[in-house]
């Protein structure tokens, strides 16, 4: 057996109050694609961060090509060819794509002066962008002007530009469109051919099946098992991850008859900075309306207009038949129209603050007297929602930024559910959420619909869309391209999403 | 990119600037510039006097109270811009005579220049308008002696110990207390409170052995409070404030510490609060300079000079006056007649002077 590219033996890492890793081992052969999966808090991220030099292990060993390594920081790891593509994007958005591709390893002349050699960098950048399937004109674009999917590809291109030996991808496809995901698979195949080893973290089981040679499953900071390529099935994975069989992933116990009363109605709505074509559709009580479309089709923007973030310039929004004026999110929240945003770290949560702080935030009026917040009532509120949503947190005082993605998402639900929503707008409700938490969130959404809440679910996850929706509206380039009920298929959705017409 | 927007922006800004008050006056009148060493009530009186003279002589006046207190480097750009505009004369309250001499000499060659309030005599200025600060300091010293006939404890407060007027005033007080010229005092601890260090000048113990310098009106009150706390309980205490804002600061702190009855306060200049303090018997007296006259005479002299008339240039120091509650007869000191006006009369005259001109 040749020397493994990467070997981790009995790695252990303890944080105050939590044992994140309790003796995890794995090996990665040169040119192998190894998927690492596991539930919330299973220790995947910690493991990746140890390999990439962000954390130092308390015990255990990491060998790179047979040599023990001790990275003092991410800089050392990058120098050694171990590159982590983070779940949260790590690009300097104020710089151009070119600058980001070469950040930290610019091609320079003039010795210590380090004068940039733009010509050489531009040539190499063009090559890198081609490899990840981005158009060459993106080189001089500022990263902040790119859609999320393209940003992700820029990060991957950046990794390709280095002398990469081990590439770690944490949820790389979470913001990619279908086509971009295909490109990513090609890139991974090319890397494999070039003998680069890839550690691949994903919650999308279809993806794992498609591109991994082998799967390592973690549970509660320990190795839970391994699956060879041939054995990777949905059921096998889920069993290893949660340690039991999941009966039903997409519960759908609520009965959407399709003739519920329309709760939210959009009539020829246009909003500032939006497309010229007005949007009209409705969400009924007790139904889950799925909204599909490619990244950039204008779904998020439309939801933001309804939530009062973007000023509505024409048309009318009706709530239970009454005209609803939303000048600001406060108006929408007051009316019971609540948004679980796409980027929870930016719009959904105050990351540095505690779980309790975030749950209380939109509910302060209810739990305050004129002498301030009633502490006991607040504690009650925290307890209720942390238990009800099964948020895994040591206490309500834990900074929410330290929770895993799935638990963060639950906190976002918690802060809204306490208000008793009429309309719940979910924008990518399970992005960055692992399989166990996903099932819980689906059950929750199902329950809400069952209680009569009108749910408007924007999603790019086809399985989720098909599994959860009672009805699907598809957007394409800013307009409503069509509506599908019953007999939902991926082909039908994609045809509308790419500009075709419903049959 | 958006030419129309940019154009409208530029036009809009130009309009705003043009419509602000005090638009550039396109007059043929002679212009006179007066610049002070700080912004203070004292200078508002001078400004009133200057305005009066400007009306009488039919000249255009630019009176600038310096925004940055006692900053010579802020004063020079203002003077320079006047020289460039071709003004008919400039009056300046010099901040740092020694170091400003070179620039002022250059200016004096181009434009008629007079100094007021604080002199720089090596610059070739036409004349100096102001009191003799050393003599005025001695007058303060005499007031201290009169208030504490058996001697006692004295603290002196001043804005700057480095400016020429500050140096001269302080030395005048100390010389008078010690009864000798260029008195330096002898280091000593306080006769009854050994913790208090200072210097002995004749029968008087000076707290900390030097004038307490605050550097800015904002610091005057805290400084007064600190010294008051240290002299609390001592008999025969006299507090002296040598810049216009010092006596009000001392008065306010003495009042807040209920020490008004225990200390004598002697002031300088005619802040309204100081005058009221005298009328109420809380302040013994104040030595006043007559800033109204500084402003008036500066503009009068420069306006006449610009018309070729040298006769209005001031040759003698302006006499200082001593304001007390009940007033008193004139005295002659070193050949100069010193008036002792009653505070009520003095204040009435001051208000009349101010009212006589529109600001």
């Amino acid at each position, binding site marked *: 057996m040749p020397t493994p590219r990467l070997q981790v033996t009995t790695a252990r890492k303890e944080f105050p109050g939590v044992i994140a890793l309790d003796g995890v081992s794995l090996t990665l052969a040169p040119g192998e694609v190894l998927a690492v999966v596991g539930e919330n808090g299973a220790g995947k991220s910690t493991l990746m961060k140890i390999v990439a030099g962000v954390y130092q292990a308390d015990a255990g060993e990491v060998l790179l090509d047979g040599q023990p390594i001790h990275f003092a*920081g*991410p*800089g050392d790891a*990058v120098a050694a060819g171990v590159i*982590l593509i983070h779940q949260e994007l*790590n*690009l*300097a*958005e*104020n*710089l151009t794509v070119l*600058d980001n591709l070469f*950040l*930290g*390893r*610019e091609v*320079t002349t*003039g010795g210590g*002066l*380090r*004068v*940039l050699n733009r010509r050489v960098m531009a040539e190499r950048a063009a090559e890198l962008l081609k490899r990840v399937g981005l158009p060459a004109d993106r080189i001089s674009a500022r990263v902040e002007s790119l859609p999320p999917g393209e940003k992700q590809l820029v990060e991957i291109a950046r990794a390709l530009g280095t002398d990469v030996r081990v590439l770690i991808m944490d949820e790389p496809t979470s913001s990619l469109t279908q086509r971009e995901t295909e490109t990513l698979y090609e890139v991974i195949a090319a890397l494999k051919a070039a003998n680069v080893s890839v550690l691949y973290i994903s919650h999308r089981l279809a993806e794992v099946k498609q591109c991994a040679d082998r799967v390592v499953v973690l549970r509660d900071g320990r190795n839970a098992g391994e699956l060879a390529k041939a054995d990777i099935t949905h059921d096998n994975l889920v069993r290893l991850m949660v340690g039991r069989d999941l009966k039903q992933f997409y519960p759908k116990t609520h009965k959407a008859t399709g003739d519920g009363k329309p709760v939210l109605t959009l009539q020829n709505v246009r909003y500032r900075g939006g497309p010229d074509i007005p949007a009209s559709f409705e969400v009924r009580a007790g139904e889950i309306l799925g909204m599909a479309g490619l990244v950039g089709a204008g779904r998020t923007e439309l939801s933001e207009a309804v939530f009062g973030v973007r000023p509505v310039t024409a048309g009318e929004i009706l709530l239970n038949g009454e005209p609803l004026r939303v000048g600001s999110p406060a108006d929408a929240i007051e009316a019971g129209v609540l948004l679980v945003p796409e980027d929870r770290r930016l719009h959904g949560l105050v990351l540095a603050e505690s779980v309790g702080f975030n749950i209380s935030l939109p509910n302060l009026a209810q739990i305050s007297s004129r002498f301030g917040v009633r502490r006991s009532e607040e504690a009650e509120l925290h307890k209720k929602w942390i238990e009800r949503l099964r948020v895994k947190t040591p206490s309500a005082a834990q900074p929410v930024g330290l929770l895993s993605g799935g638990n963060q998402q639950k906190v976002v639900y918690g802060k809204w559910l306490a208000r008793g929503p009429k309309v719940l707008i979910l924008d990518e409700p399970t992005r960055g959420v692992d399989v166990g938490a996903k099932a819980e969130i689906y059950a929750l959404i199902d329950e809400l619909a069952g209680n009569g809440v009108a749910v408007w679910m924007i999603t790019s996850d086809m399985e989720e869309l098909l599994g959860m929706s009672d009805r699907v509206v598809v957007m394409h380039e800013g307009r409503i391209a069509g509506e599908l009920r019953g007999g939902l298929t991926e082909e039908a959705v994609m045809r509308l999403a790419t500009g075709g017409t419903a049959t | *990119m*958006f030419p129309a*927007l*940019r154009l409208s*922006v*530029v036009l*809009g*800004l130009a309009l*705003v*600037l043009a419509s602000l*008050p*005090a638009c*550039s*006056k396109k007059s043929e009148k002679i212009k006179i510039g007066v610049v002070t060493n700080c*912004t203070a009530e004292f200078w508002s009186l001078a400004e009133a006097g200057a305005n009066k003279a400007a009306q009488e002589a039919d000249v255009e006046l*630019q*009176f600038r*109270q310096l*925004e*940055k*207190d*006692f*900053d*010579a*480097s802020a004063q*020079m*750009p*203002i003077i*320079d811009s006047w020289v*460039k*505009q071709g003004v008919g004369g400039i009056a300046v309250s010099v901040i*740092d005579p*020694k*170091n*400003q001499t*070179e620039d002022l000499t*250059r200016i004096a060659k181009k434009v008629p220049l007079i100094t007021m309030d604080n002199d720089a005599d090596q610059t070739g200025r036409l004349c100096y308008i102001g009191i003799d600060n050393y003599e005025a300091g001695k007058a303060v010293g005499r007031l201290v002696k009169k208030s504490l006939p058996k001697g006692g404890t004295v603290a002196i407060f001043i804005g700057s110990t*480095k400016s020429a007027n500050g140096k001269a005033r302080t030395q005048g007080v100390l010389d008078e207390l010690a009864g000798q010229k260029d008195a330096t005092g002898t280091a000593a601890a306080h006769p009854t409170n050994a913790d208090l260090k200072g210097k002995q000048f004749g029968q008087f113990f000076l707290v900390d052995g030097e004038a307490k310098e605050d550097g800015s009106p904002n610091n005057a009150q805290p400084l007064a409070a600190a010294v008051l706390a240290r002299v609390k309980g001592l008999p025969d205490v006299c507090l002296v404030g040598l810049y216009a804002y010092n006596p009000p600061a001392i008065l306010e702190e003495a009042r807040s510490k209920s020490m008004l009855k225990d200390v004598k306060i002697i002031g300088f200049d005619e802040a309204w609060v100081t005058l009221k303090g005298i009328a109420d018997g809380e302040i013994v007296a104040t030595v006043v300079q007559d800033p109204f006259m500084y402003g008036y005479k500066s503009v009068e002299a420069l306006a006449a000079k610009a018309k070729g008339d040298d006769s209005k240039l001031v040759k003698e120091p302006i006499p200082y006056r001593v304001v007390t509650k009940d007033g008193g007869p004139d005295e002659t000191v070193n050949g100069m007649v010193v008036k002792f006006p009653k505070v009520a009369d003095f204040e009435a005259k001051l208000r009349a002077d101010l009212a006589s001109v529109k600001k």
Partner: protein
Amino acid sequence: MTRILGVLGLLVVLYTTLITSHPKAGEPDNLISVANLQGRFGIITLGAALVIIVGGIDLSIGAVVGCSAVLFGVLMNKGVHPFAAVPIVILFGATVGLTNGSLITRLKLQPFLVTLCGMFVFRGFARLLGGTLGQASVIEGHPEYKDPIRTLRHLLIGKDPIDGELIFPAQFILLIVLAGLVGFFLHRTAYGRYWYAIGHSELAAKYAGVNVSRQRVVIYVVCSALAALTGVLLFLDAPSVQSDNAGFSWELYAILGAVLGGCSLRGGEGTAVGMVLGAMVLPVLESLVNFRGDASDVIPVVIGLTLLIGAIVDELIRQRSRIHR
């Protein structure tokens, strides 16, 4: 590009208003004295802007200017040759920057706090060093320094060695040279990329293998060294410097210049050209109020309102350009 449009427009308006406000205002000698002040403020603006670009703030600039000016005078009083005193003062500034930078990066203290404390400390140092100092008083004690001081003044300020008349805007020329250097590093070298990246996202820079702490320290050193240089210039230009108020609140002028010039206080934005343009605004405005003969009482209002309107307009232009992008 749109980031400097606003300040460019503001300058055009101010210069036009200045030149039409008085027949003498547009003459070269007035424009030279305005340029000289612009140069002096511009140099500290460069430092402040660099610090802002890396996401920090330096409130100690004014105090360092004052302290350096006083130190420069004191050194010469103590018998240090003027030509030797200049590098010593700049070295002092660099040391201040090293201290600020180390406290901020090593102990992870907030830049606002560290430099606010620095503001008090260095103002205090200035007072401890001495009260009022000027060229004339130095020359009085050391007549042999007269020629070197005059030479320095001629070269760095542009004042005639004999009578002190301002003949060319040396400080502005110095600013252009320094801005050229800053621009070169900012826009043409890898270091500039690091500074922008650090200012926008420290983590992104760190994950790209940039030594964030070292770059930050370097920037603080540059900023304080420029402030020290400005202290030398102030001493050479002013009749005298007083420890209490030399350079007082200039850090605010520097930050104002940087922000007007397109630096975002959030970090990661700014250009060398913008810094120079931003720093040019205030001196023109001051010359304008001097020439208009505004009453003392309205001057602060005029200055404040003009800057505010300029900032509002600038923001409007930027929002427009964003929508149309």
